[in-house]
Structures are given as C-alpha cells and as structure tokens.
C-alpha cells in the first residue's frame, strides 16, 4: 500500500508552476507576433475613420467620410489618382500601403467625446484599425488623441482648431494638419487692420469650451497687437440657440466690432441674430459696425445664407485655390460626388495620404516609425502650398486663408471668397509659445 505525500500546499505549488509553464509560451507568442498594436498580418491594412455621422455635424462628417473613401480609392490605385499625382513625396504608388490593400472601418463620433472615444476604441480593438482619422470638434479630437496615445495607434486629426490640440494636450501619437486659433489670429489681424483701421473696440462672444477659449485668446491677442481694444468677452453655453440676450448688451457697450468665436449651429444662430438686431447698419464711435467670424466652414456659410455677406473670417483651405494639389483634389472629388469638397474633407483626405506616405517612407506600420517619418516632414502638392509637419508639437505649418462672405454668389457653392493667402511665415510661432504651453508631447507608444 502506497502512501501519497500530496498536501494542499504542495498541490497549490505544483499547479502554479504548471500554470506558469503553460502560460509562458503564450506570453512570448503574443509579444513576438505583435511588435506593435494591430500590426497587419494579411494582405490588407485597416484604417479607422471616426467622423460625426449623427448629430449636428453629420453633414460635415459625411463630407469627411466621402474624402476618406476617395483617399482609400486613390491609395489602392483606383479612380483618377487625385493628389497622388501632385504630392511631392513620390512614395505612394497606388498599390495600397506597403503593398497591402487599404480597407477601412467607420465610427460615429456624434460630436461627443465619450461616444468618439468608444467608437475609436471599438475600431482599434475589434476591427484592428491601425490609424484613426477624422472628427469635427476640438473636444473630440483631444479625447480621441488621448485614447490613441494610450492604445498605441496613430491619430491623424480631422477638423480641430483649438490651440490645445497641439498645445497643452499634444501627444506623440497625434498629428494635426488643420490650422489653429493662433494662426487664425495671425492671418486675420493684419487684414482687419487694413480694412477697418487700428482704432477699433471689439466685443467677443465665445463658445464656452476649449476651442472657443483658445480662439478668443488668440484673436484678442492678435487684434490688440494691431491697436484694437477688447471691450468684453462673454462666454456663451454651447447649448445656446437664441443669442438675442447676448447680442443686445453689445449695442450699449461702446464696441464697434463683434467677434463671434462660435462654430457650426452656434455661429449660424449668433450671426443671424446679430444681423437681425441691425448691428451691421449701425454706426458706433463714428465708424460702421463690423462683425468678424474667425473660423469659417463651407457648411456654416451655407447655413448662415445671405447673413455672411462681407463678413471676414479664416479657413484652412478652400476649393477655389488654384494650386495643382487643390485642382487635382477638387476635380477628383467633384467628378465623383458632384460638389466641391469642404475644408474638413480636404484635411481628412490629406491626412490619410500623409499617413500612408509616412508608412511607405518608414517601411513599417509601427507607430513609432510612422511618427518619425512625419516629424519634420516637408511636402507640397496636397493643396496648401509648401507645408511642414513640425517635430516639436506635430502641428502642420502652411499658408492660411483669409476669406469673407461672397457679396454676389452665383451658385450654391459660391458662398465665400478668398481675400488673402497669408504666407506660412506669418502664422508660425515658437514651440514654447505661451498659448501652447503646459503640455508634453511624450514619447510614441507602439502599443502591444
């Protein structure tokens, strides 16, 4: 009769050792198989397009999505090639990215930070998206950029204009092609000075969130630098629909310029209300009253209708530009969809091509390699003239457009006219500029 020496403690020890032994190869397999997050293993690579498909910016999101789909077509060698023909980097050959066919999945940001993070997370974790692109809000962009940094994928921002995106909230995995509030101020202020003079008193109405705050700060600083006085800045809730209560105090403030730091529906309503109250027909301090909308989009202009006539603002890009990159993109987009692209569509298209190009030049999809390829990258031919992706903060530097509402529009798309193409040198700033202080780019995260 044999006696077993098995004790409870012994059994636990043996189980632990056996468990570790079984698990060990799996751990090694996981780390050796995936050198970075969502490394493509088959014949295709998946990009994640995270745009507002519902909610107030759904039309803008739809335009972004059209451009992203067009970019995928061009990357895969379909269609007319678009900007692949004009892009000064010749790395893209129309055979996908690094020989892999480009596929995409889409997410709906709903223009809500939590929803945008959830949709980006789902695309990364469930669909294996290796890059996230798109969006129409700075709040969303900052939230998704943070998520991509944690997850270890590249974030190529869509429309985001807050200084914070590449300022205090910048991340090593995040890249912004779109311009920002500081650049709007630097481009607009000299034109406003030329048009309206040095001795002006400005009243700001500002959307109460990150984009509004940084744009107001930028515009106030730039206009004060040319001699304007900022009379007041009133923060308005994002959910505001009727701005009459905010407009009427302007009438008795002594201001002769109203600056609307509003975007989307807020801007359409505040501008409409300001026009209703006859501000543009008023004379204050011996001068004609003026309204400025620092950030324009084509859809906002369409929503505001005739109210934007003669009102100055700025844009990242406009389909009326005559450079080769713009012409190629507008032709391609227009032929396919029957309308000119918006500036948010253009930024998403350019970002998708820039990401693909960086992968080709880096020879890898590894976010750290891609990031290195994008940092300090100088290029042309995507529609904004010579452009630099600055390494310090991952912000693109390029010409900025000063525009105004068309006086005599001839068709539905003829809503804005280009007043000036402000050269890149005029909108550049030091990486440690106080308006962008407080953040840390950190190091790239490859995930896995």
């Amino acid at each position, binding site marked *: 009769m044999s006696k077993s020496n098995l004790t409870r403690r012994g059994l636990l020890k043996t189980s632990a050792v056996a468990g570790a032994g079984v698990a060990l190869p799996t751990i090694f397999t996981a780390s050796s198989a995936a050198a970075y997050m969502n490394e493509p293993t088959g014949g295709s690579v998946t990009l994640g397009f995270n745009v507002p498909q519902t909610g107030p910016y759904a039309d803008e999101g739809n335009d972004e999505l059209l451009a992203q789909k067009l970019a995928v077509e061009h990357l895969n060698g379909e269609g007319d090639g678009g900007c692949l023909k004009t892009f000064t980097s010749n790395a893209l050959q129309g055979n996908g990215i690094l020989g892999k066919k480009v596929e995409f999945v889409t997410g709906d940001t709903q223009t809500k930070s939590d929803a945008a993070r959830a949709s980006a997370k789902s695309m990364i974790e469930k669909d294996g998206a290796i890059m996230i692109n798109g969006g129409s809000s700075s709040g969303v962009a900052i939230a998704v950029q943070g998520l991509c940094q944690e997850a270890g994928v590249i974030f190529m921002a869509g429309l985001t204009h807050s200084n914070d995106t590449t300022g205090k909230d910048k991340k090593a995995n995040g890249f912004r092609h779109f311009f920002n509030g500081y650049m709007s101020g630097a481009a607009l202020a000299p034109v406003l000075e030329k048009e309206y003079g040095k001795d002006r008193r400005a009243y700001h109405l500002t959307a109460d969130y990150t984009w509004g705050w940084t744009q107001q700060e930028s515009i106030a600083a730039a206009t004060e630098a040319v001699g304007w006085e900022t009379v007041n800045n009133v923060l308005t809730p994002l959910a505001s629909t009727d701005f009459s209560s905010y407009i009427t105090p302007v009438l008795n403030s002594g201001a002769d310029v109203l600056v609307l730091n509003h975007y989307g*529906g807020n801007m359409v309503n505040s501008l409409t209300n300001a026009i209703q109250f006859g501000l543009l027909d008023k004379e204050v301090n011996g001068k004609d009253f003026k309204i400025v909308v620092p950030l324009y989009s084509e859809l906002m202009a369409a*929503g505001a209708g005739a109210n934007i006539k003669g009102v100055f603002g700025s844009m990242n890009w406009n389909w*009326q530009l005559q450079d080769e990159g713009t012409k190629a993109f507008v032709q391609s987009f227009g032929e396919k969809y029957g309308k000119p692209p918006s500036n948010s569509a253009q930024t998403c298209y350019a970002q998708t091509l820039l990401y693909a190009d960086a992968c080709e030049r880096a020879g890898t999809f590894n976010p750290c390699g891609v990031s290195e390829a994008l940092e300090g990258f100088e290029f042309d031919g995507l529609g904004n003239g010579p452009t630099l992706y600055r390494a310090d903060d991952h912000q693109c530097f390029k010409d900025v457009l000063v525009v105004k509402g068309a006086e005599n529009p001839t068709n539905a798309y003829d809503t804005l006219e280009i007043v000036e193409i402000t050269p890149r040198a005029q909108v550049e700033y030091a990486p440690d500029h106080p308006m962008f202080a407080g953040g840390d780019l950190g190091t790239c995260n490859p995930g896995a």
Partner: protein
Amino acid sequence: MDAFLIQILNGLDKGSAYALIALGLTLIFGTLGVVNFAHGALFMIGAFCAVTLQRIFKLSFVTEDPTQQDFLGNPLKVETPYVMDWFGPEVGAGIIEWSVPLAILFCIPVMIGVGFAMERGLIKHFYKRPHADQILVTFGLAIVLQEIIKYFFGANPIPTPAPASLNGVVNLGAIIGMDIVYPLWRVIYFCFSALIIGGIFAFLQFTTFGMVVRAGMADRETVGLLGINIDRKFTIMFGIAAAVAGLAGVMYTPINPPNYHMGMDFLVLSFVVVVVGGMGSLPGAVLAGFLLGILESFASTTWATTTIPGINQVIIYLVAIIVLLTRPRGLLGRKGVMED
C-alpha cells in the same frame, strides 16, 4: 433703462415660443391626459413646413450657360425657379421671398393631419397606460421624426429668411423718446403668438365646442355619460395643439435657421414651463412661458453672468425648484391634476 427694456423684449420674444409650445403641451395633457414628449418634434415639423414650401417655390428647370463655368470647368448650370418663369422674375422672386408668411397657410392643414395621424395611429393606444410608458413612446417618436427630417433635409441649418420688408429693425421707443431698437420680425413673432394664444382661449371660452372640451377636461366621464363623443373632440384638440406648435415653428424660422434638432432644444424647457405653470393649466403655461423667458433673458446679461457665473444655464431650473417647493402644483395648477 433702454437696455432693461430691450431685455424685457428679449424675454417676451423667447417666452412667445415657450408659451406656444407649452400651451399645446398643456392642451394635450389637459384633454387626453398624455405627456407628449413628441411635441417639440411638432414645432420642428412646423418649421420644416416653411422650408418645404420655400423649396417648392424654388423648384427650378436647368439651362446651361456656356459663358460661365462651374467648379469643374463645365458650362454653368443655371437654375430658374418655375414661379419666376410663370409669373415673371419680380412676382416669382416675391413669392419665394414671402414663403415664410405663406407657409402659415400651408402649415395648418399639414400639422392638423400630422396631429391626427400621431394621435390615431399611436398615442391613443397609450391613453390608459402609465405616464412613464407615454413618455417613452412619445420620446421615441420624437427621435424617429427628427431622423426622418434629417434624412430628407440634412443636419445643417437651412436659411429661411423673412421677407426683406419685415427683416429690419423698428424703434419701439420712438413714441416715448427712447431708443429701443428691436428686430421687426421678433415683434411680429410676439404679436403673432399673442394672437394665437388669445384665439385659443377665445375658442375654448366662447364656442360650444370649447365649452364641451373644457367640461371634458374637468370631468371626462360625466361628459361622456351625457352622450357626447368627447374622445373625438379631444382628437380634434390634439390636431389643434399640433397646429399651434407647427405655427410657432413656422414663424420661428427667420429667427434661427431651422435644423432637425430644434424641437429637442425647446422640449425640455417647455416641459419646465408646463410644470412651473401648473400641469393642465392653460393660463399657467402662458404665464410661466413669458415669465421664464424674461428671467432667462436677464440671466444672460453680462452683469448677471459676471455676478453669478453660469446663472444663465441654470436659472430656469432654479426657478422651477423654488416654485415647486413653495407651490407644488405650480403657479396656477389645479388640485387633482396628476396627483392620483
């Protein structure tokens, strides 16, 4: 003093929309006992009646102009509205320009039809269900309606201006030697609202139909026992309430370009107005609508937001709490309504 009076006007103007929507909500609640969360959607559909009529008037035939080019370099396609072709450029342009006032006539039958369809097709099945069920189904209906509108009209606001002659400003203080400049269309909106509210009260007060409805609101069962088909009359009242919300929406389009979400923007505030005014009380709804409009207007002034930051965002709810603590039935609420 001028600034004070202008804020009063702003409040009356905001209150006009609140009062009209709350009036319709109260009519439906008072007659049918239904808490209709789709009422904001009716306001939105009314606004889109104006957009639809404007689009109908702008229906165009296309000709190519070889002397001009579109953005792709092709000959420009010039759209000429049929009304301009049929009635001449000036009359045609005038018809398009007056599409919002003309939409009042277009909106009434459309909204009564929408109201009937909504009541007969869906809401009548929930009369005897708990209020929570009614809220869920009507809220769901509101979302469905706004998604339908978004599908056909997009998410972007659509400019729907008032006729140029009604689009300027008017100095309301000229008679008393003050400078109270106010947008003409907003003055018209206030007067229009007052007219509709007066009309509804007169209809309920001075017509036999109104008398029966009021009797039904007080004691539905007894009126039914007298052989009167009160359900049918209440269905008509639902249609009328829908038309009132629709008219409020039509007239609101020049104030802010309509979008599919505008109903939701007003819905919660209008419910607060109904609760503050007193559930089921028509005068309460109107009084609370204007009162809260004025309070909201003053809370948005620079002085108020500097003194108490954020007051503009919470004032209405703050007042609602105070009113409900001191007068649980609301300002003019009746005993027994929603208390069983």
